[in-house]
């Protein structure tokens, strides 16, 4: 297949590809072959850490048979990439860590099994920060993923954000029709904003965490990264739903999210939180935020200034809660039941050597801080204090929702994508500040969608974020669509990697 005929198929949105398949314009096998060719040509992006071409073609063939039999599912024949946090049966799953480099799960995560049940096709596993700990995908054991976007007139490689950076890069480069990611502090929304794609973190409990590598269990949620709001709605509808195997998964019907795309937002009250106007916010981001408010106002929404007074404490509280939970969750990597083992004189030395060799620098740092804040004498000062602050952060949102605010509009990130190596200096906190606008939602369990809304002066995508009430995803899809219609979609025009 020539590059141009391949691109005719891969440039279709998921929604358009599904329509083309349903109407018989092309087959799932042809679509999958086009993506496999595009992936092969995109090695420079390092977005995939594993491709599964044979499995993909088998799944596509089965999809074609179901189209012929009239039993096609809602995602039938749609080729997807999956973040390496999701266990995929018989397909190596590493969380991009050396400690799991040969792990082949004997089971499938609930979220991915829902996607396959609805007919989707697995193209491969996507790059990420090790154990989802990072905001740039530089901490992957497979090396950094690269953003398909470049600054105008520059060939400097930029990060795709993180931790779901491989997912966002792959969606933006059109080497998958959509992707499944995970978001603990912003790991879906920040990379979506850096790559001009749409990403939604649903309400805590909306998607099952079963079979997803655990980072911080009270914050982790799965969600899609996609090329349009409608594509994200289609994916989330398949991913969400109750699962008895995750005790925090809610038993609530999953709405038809696609029906909410294009619904009127007239009369919706949108809060603009003054505390998000942080010191040093770039004038470009501030202008984008105003532009987003104007787009929603134009569509009939009412814009209201609000206050979320504990905003500035969300990030420090997050770094206590998340790291404490991580130190506990990652205790399982001990070289006994799975993963790599480094022998020692006795079992303790075996544990210590195994973990020293298997974990990268950022993971080691986070596990150690988490261990410290949970250690005897410090638990109350750090962990208990952070959980109290978390109650206050959630209360801030409850207060504005009770006053009639339907959703909150904020920037997704403090800046556009930065260069590889630019923020990996001596102070880890510099990278942590990437999550300043996204982390509050994880702390409060709320849903949030990142939608591209413009380009920076250097030609890089910028995203806005809408934050909803608990289980208010439908409203976010309606509001996100307003922004997408007003701002347009953003495609990489210079396909330099091909």
């Amino acid at each position, binding site marked *: 297949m020539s590059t141009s005929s391949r691109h005719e198929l891969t440039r279709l949105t998921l929604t358009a590809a599904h329509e083309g398949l349903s109407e018989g314009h092309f087959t799932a096998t042809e679509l999958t072959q086009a993506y496999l060719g595009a992936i092969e040509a995109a090695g420079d992006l390092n977005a995939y850490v594993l491709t599964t071409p044979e499995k993909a073609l088998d799944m596509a063939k089965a999809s074609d048979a179901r189209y012929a039999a009239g039993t096609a599912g809602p995602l039938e024949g749609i080729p997807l990439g999956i973040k390496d946090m999701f266990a995929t049966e018989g397909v190596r799953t590493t969380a991009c860590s050396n400690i799991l480099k040969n792990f082949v799960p004997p089971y499938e995560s609930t979220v991915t099994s829902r996607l396959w049940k609805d007919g989707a096709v697995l193209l491969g596993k996507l790059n990420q920060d090790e154990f989802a700990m990072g905001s740039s995908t530089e901490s992957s054991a497979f090396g950094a993923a690269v953003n398909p976007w470049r600054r105008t007139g520059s060939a400097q490689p930029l990060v795709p954000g993180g931790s779901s950076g491989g997912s966002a890069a792959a969606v933006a480069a059109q080497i998958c029709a959509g992707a499944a990611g995970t978001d603990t502090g912003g790991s879906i929304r920040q990379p979506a904003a850096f790559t001009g794609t749409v990403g939604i973190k649903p309400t805590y409990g909306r998607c099952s965490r079963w079979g997803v590598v655990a980072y911080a269990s009270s914050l982790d949620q799965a969600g899609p990264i996609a090329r349009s709001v409608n594509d994200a709605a289609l994916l989330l509808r398949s991913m969400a739903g109750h699962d008895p195997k995750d005790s925090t998964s809610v038993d609530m019907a999953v709405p038809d999210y696609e029906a909410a795309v294009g619904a009127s937002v007239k009369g919706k009250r949108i809060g603009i939180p003054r505390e998000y106007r942080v010191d040093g916010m770039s004038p470009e981001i501030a202008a984008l935020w105003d532009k987003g408010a104007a787009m929603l106002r134009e569509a009939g929404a009412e814009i209201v200034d609000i206050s979320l007074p504990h905003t*500035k404490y969300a990030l420090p509280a997050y770094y206590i809660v998340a790291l404490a939970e991580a130190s506990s969750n990652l205790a399982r990597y001990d070289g*006994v039941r799975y993963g790599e083992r480094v022998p020692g004189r006795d079992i303790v030395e075996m544990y210590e050597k195994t973990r020293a060799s298997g974990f990268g620098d950022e993971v080691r740092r986070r596990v150690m801080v988490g261990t410290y804040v949970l250690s005897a004498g410090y638990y109350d000062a750090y962990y208990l204090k952070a959980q109290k602050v978390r109650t206050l952060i959630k209360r801030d949102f409850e207060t504005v929702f009770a006053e009639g605010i339907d959703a909150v509009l904020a920037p997704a990130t403090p800046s556009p994508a930065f260069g590889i190596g630019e923020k990996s200096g001596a102070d880890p906190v510099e990278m942590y500040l990437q999550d300043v606008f996204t982390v509050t939602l994880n702390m409060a369990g709320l849903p949030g969608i990142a939608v591209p809304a413009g380009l920076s002066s250097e030609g890089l995508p910028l995203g806005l974020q809408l934050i909803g009430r608990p289980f208010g995803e439908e409203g976010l899809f309606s509001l996100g669509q307003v922004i997408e219609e007003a701002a347009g979609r953003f495609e990489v025009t210079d396909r330099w990697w091909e």
Partner: protein
Amino acid sequence: MSVDQATVRRVAHLARIAVTEDEVAHLQGELNAILAFVEQLGEVDTDGVEPMTSVIPMTLPLRADVVSDGFYAERVLANAPASEDGFFAVPKVVE
């Protein structure tokens, strides 16, 4: 609060991560940077505030106490670095 090098070694041992002497000073700096950053929580008045236990109000579901899964030891052991006779194998832990 900040940590000294002895604390870094103690925490590394609690976390079961071997650290070399060269790494201790470096880790001390990084850990202290993170701890200094979270220090600002001290400004927040949390008197009488309940710590969060569940971000979405829900009761823990219970299921019937019956065996519903299992009986595939070979799959459970498939990724083990070492196994013997249907068990995980580890260095001797009892003298």
